[in-house]
């Protein structure tokens, strides 16, 4: 029985194998291909800044920054603190609008919970306006370059940005209320009640292993295995091809890990998330709440960042094209995104991209099941399985690069 899912961001094929009413196996295939890595080969180094972000219209901003970082690493360039802060602001804004969109347009829609579309839409529009203020437009901007950012903001933009952040904060509070697991209100309460009444609170438990591969002002590059934290290194990332799919599976030292908002929130010692995790482990409940919690958290960090920007710092530090290797990771909406570039004779000799969805939606084996397989195998209901599938916020657009 083949179930085809086309919800949000392209298409993935999910094949459930039922044996006497129970899902015994699940396989994910991404049947599309564009060949972006092939296209990048042999081009002028800086072309990566135009081509690579166009892998994805949903998280193109993270791709742009990953490309810029990979080039900076290859060229041996540094960027100013100001550029770093501005890049984080726009990247976080992209994550925020993504999470709001997913929370309502995917999860609420699937659970048939009514919501205030106009307010939701307004929050999405505002978050994108925030990106555009610095980056020129959203989606698909080009303001991040090797060496920094091109925008030269003034106090006027800072004031505008602060006003936007405040407006989003107000809308989010209107929609979600406080993040207090004892007293959930508004849409958070509605979501919890819906999960509870449909007996879904405990489904979707997976490997309970988490990973992030990059470091920024929110996360560190750590993995959580059996509750223990260890530093991670890109050296141990392995890719594995799968028959019939254009997306490779990804492992860390032979093991599958969950990447994304839950992985990020798990390493931050947040009481709200910790309590949820204690009760519901890494089920869809924790996964969904962690994701929307992250939207709120990142909004606060953006507000702090806006106060920290020193306008006197340079936006750009001179950066010349030289040969070298750049292997970097950055946190995108769905988790750790990896770009790897090799520059030879000022041209791209090789470019490879690993997207977050590859981590979560790999195909494992019986002995070593992937995140998705572990979360879905054993369920008896296709609807439930689809909800678990979507709780990972798949992006097949990205994955079929």
């Amino acid at each position, binding site marked *: 029985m*083949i179930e*085809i*899912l*086309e*919800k*949000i*961001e*392209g298409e993935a094929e999910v094949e459930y194998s039922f044996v006497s009413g129970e899902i015994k196996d699940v396989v994910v295939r991404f*049947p*599309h*291909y*564009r*060949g*972006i890595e*092939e*296209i990048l080969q042999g*081009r*002028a180094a*800086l*072309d990566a*800044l*135009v*081509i690579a972000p*166009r892998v*994805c*219209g949903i998280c*193109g901003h993270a791709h742009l920054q990953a490309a810029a970082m990979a080039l900076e690493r290859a060229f041996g360039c540094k960027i100013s603190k100001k550029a770093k802060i501005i890049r984080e602001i726009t990247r976080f804004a992209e994550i925020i*609008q993504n999470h709001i*969109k997913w929370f309502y*347009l995917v999860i609420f829609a*699937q659970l048939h919970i009514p919501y205030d*579309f*106009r307010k939701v*839409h307004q929050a*999405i*529009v505002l978050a*994108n*306006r925030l*990106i555009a*203020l610095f*980056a*020129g*437009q*959203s*989606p*698909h*901007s080009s*303001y991040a370059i090797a*060496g*920094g950012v*091109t925008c*030269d903001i003034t106090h006027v933009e800072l004031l*505008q940005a602060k006003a936007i952040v405040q407006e989003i904060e107000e809308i989010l509070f209107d929609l979600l209320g406080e993040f207090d697991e004892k007293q959930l209100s508004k849409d958070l309460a509605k979501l919890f009640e819906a999960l509870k009444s449909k007996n879904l609170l405990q489904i979707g438990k997976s490997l309970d292993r988490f990973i992030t591969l990059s470091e920024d002002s929110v996360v560190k590059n750590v993995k959580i295995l059996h509750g223990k934290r260890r530093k991670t290194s890109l050296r141990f990332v392995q890719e594995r091809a799968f028959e019939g799919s*254009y997306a490779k599976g990804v492992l860390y030292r032979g093991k599958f890990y969950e990447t994304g908002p839950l992985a990020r929130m798990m390493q931050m010692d947040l009481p709200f998330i910790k309590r949820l995790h204690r009760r519901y482990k890494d089920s869809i409940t924790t996964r969904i709440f962690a994701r929307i919690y992250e939207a709120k958290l990142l909004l606060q960090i953006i507000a702090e960042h806006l106060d920290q920007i020193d306008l006197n710092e*340079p*936006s*750009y530090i*001179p950066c010349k094209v030289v040969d070298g290797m750049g292997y970097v990771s950055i946190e995108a909406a769905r988790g750790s995104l990896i770009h790897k570039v090799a520059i030879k004779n000022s041209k791209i000799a090789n470019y490879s991209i690993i997207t977050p969805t590859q981590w979560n939606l790999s195909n494992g084996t019986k002995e070593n099941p992937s995140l998705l397989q572990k979360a879905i195998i054993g369920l008896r209901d296709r609807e439930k399985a*689809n909800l678990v599938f979507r709780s990972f916020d798949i992006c097949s*657009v990205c994955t079929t690069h």
Partner: protein
Amino acid sequence: MNRENLRALFTAKSARVDTNKGEKYYQELYKRCRARLDELAKMPAFTKISIKEVLEDEGVSRRDFLKWASAVTAMLMLPSSFTPLVAEAAELMNRVPVIWIELQDCAGNSEALLRSDGPKIDEIILEIISLEFHETLMAAAGHQAEKQLEDAMEHFAGKYLLFVEGSIPVGRGKEWCTIGASGETFEEHLKRIASKAAAIVAVGTCATFGGVPAANPNPTGAVGVMDVINDKPIINIPACPANPANMVGVILHFVLTGQIPELDSLLRPKFAFGYRIHDNCERRAHFDAGEFVEEWGDEGAQNNFCLYKMGCKGPMTFNNCSIVRYNESVNWPIGSGHGCIGCSEPGFWDKYAYERPMADANIKMAPGGGVEKSVDEFGLGLLTAAGVGIAIHAAASAVAGKKEGDDK
């Protein structure tokens, strides 16, 4: 290159869009639109929500709505007397069904639509237009979605506007990209849905010209809609992503006149692609004054000087970004200090890509490529001429600038 030649280059008559076609023309057009709207008003609406309700809900005044309508009228290059008609057309948008499909894409154009702008245009798009079937936006999935699509196609046969996002692999990648349980290729999928459409709107550079997937070596053999479909009217709205304002503009035009807007030879609506970015750029004055950013982050960059020398493709790119801008008009790429990358031009992915000023781009003069060419004929010929002309101007201005500085 001297100033006279430059002037000739930028004011060449045939390169202009005809914004005044004479009173008689507009009187007849007005009559036609009037008849069309009367006819539409008699038809049943496809969605239950009416613009009046939405406006009332939102507390938007009639005045604000008409303000928006007059802005759209101007964008569509119609005389202001058409404003009431445009407002009426917006109210009748729910008489025109829209089907939206995604092929070899990144979903960036649907994203742009979702993040769209304007005083309450977002509501108009998302609630008034009947997006009958949009693979990303709709709630259904899989088999259920395919059924919905079939239903919409049957029910609205010959009436719907088909929006296509993404390129179509017809080469080696044909078998690599399939849709649904049937395993239909993108090409078959598109042809099937296109067969019953009133017209097709190719949205974004991938659907129009192949886009990034078609970049050398074009691993999948990606092409645009117009390379696959040849028996239907096609409207191209290139750019990466396409500006939602132009998508709305095309729909409104269709509602208003029952016809597709005037197109250039690349099938782009002239109202949006009749001018170059450069013609209406906010930094144009700096170009004319010979003030350029010479290096990222320099004093010129801090003072919003012209980005031509940093590889801005504004002088070679036809689009209305410099007027309409993005994300509720808050900004646009040049506003953020980065030059235009020419993302709405065919071949931008190979011809322009990154920061290569035209003078360094090694594009040869096409034989017989003069400057007296209209938008319709705009090709490598004019592009080269303009590019060379501008490059010489940029170089000369830098020398001139230096001299002035030395004198002090």
